[in-house]
């Protein structure tokens, strides 16, 4: 196996960047105190991050480059909305997956 020096360097670099970004404020010492209004505000951060990852997957095509490609004929939207509704009402994951995928597949062939 030929080891490509640049790719090796890149992989090491990306590993360090991953660790550094995830421990960015964590590595601060015991004397540092994060102001409480910041801690109070970031309660919403993990929820928002999950939604920010999920929402474009539901409301935009996988290949989209901007919101201009929003289109009501997209099967993701209907499958996604059905899944949200089913999970909200039943809280059953397997059922949600089945209905979501069924609506998604139906919408793909319908439009």
């Amino acid at each position: 196996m030929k080891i490509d020096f640049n790719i090796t360097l890149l992989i090491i670099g990306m590993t360090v960047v991953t660790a550094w970004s995830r421990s960015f404020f964590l590595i601060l010492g015991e004397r540092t105190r994060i102001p409480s209004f910041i801690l109070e505000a970031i309660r919403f951060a993990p929820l928002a991050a999950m939604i920010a990852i999920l929402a474009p997957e539901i409301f935009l095509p996988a290949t989209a480059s901007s919101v201009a490609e929003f289109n009501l004929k997209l099967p993701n939207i209907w499958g996604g909305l059905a899944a949200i509704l089913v999970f909200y009402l039943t809280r059953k994951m397997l059922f949600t997956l089945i209905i979501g995928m069924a609506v998604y597949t139906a919408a793909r062939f319908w439009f």
Partner: protein
Amino acid sequence: MAKSSLTVHQALAVSLLVYAGSSQLAALPLIAAGLPIWMILLTSFMVNLRFVIFSLGLQAHFSYLPLWRKFFLGYCTADFSYLLYIKRYPEPETKHELLADKECLRLHWMMGMQFSNWFLWQVGSIFGILLASQIPSNWGLEFAGSIALLAIIVPMLDRSSARWAALSAAVVAVATYGIPFRLNIVLAIGAALVVGMMTDRSPKGTIL
């Protein structure tokens, strides 16, 4: 990843070491385009900005650890481990509680969560690298993965402030989709924090 310009060995190394799905996905087209390393690293950092925000929330919890352990703990903290940890342990332990907790229960809870997350993620990722060419991409399997996230998100929408924050995050993330460095995620978090704080009527100190 294996459908890209990397060899299988390189893809495996990336999966095992660069434990960050979104920065991997962001880096691949740049690698294929032959961009300079520093630009790819900058992109990785920008795509990881949400973890910088998360690290703020963990600081007070683990400030007692030695530096290298904090660094490693941070490295292993992906979306789910942060979310589930902070949901279970909203407040950091006081000095007194910390002294009484000889077994470092929280730290080990977190490490267990991280290891399971890491392990399952690697199984899926490596499976994907080795079988990439065998899996048809038109079944909508990715979509099933998206739906599965609902199981984590929906139970968090238990208060009106959380629902308003979630709605604004969704609108901002979709409306600004496609801006560089996946900054739409960071903008969505920003919007959710502002809206969440504005609509929050619960007494101070309650944690989501």
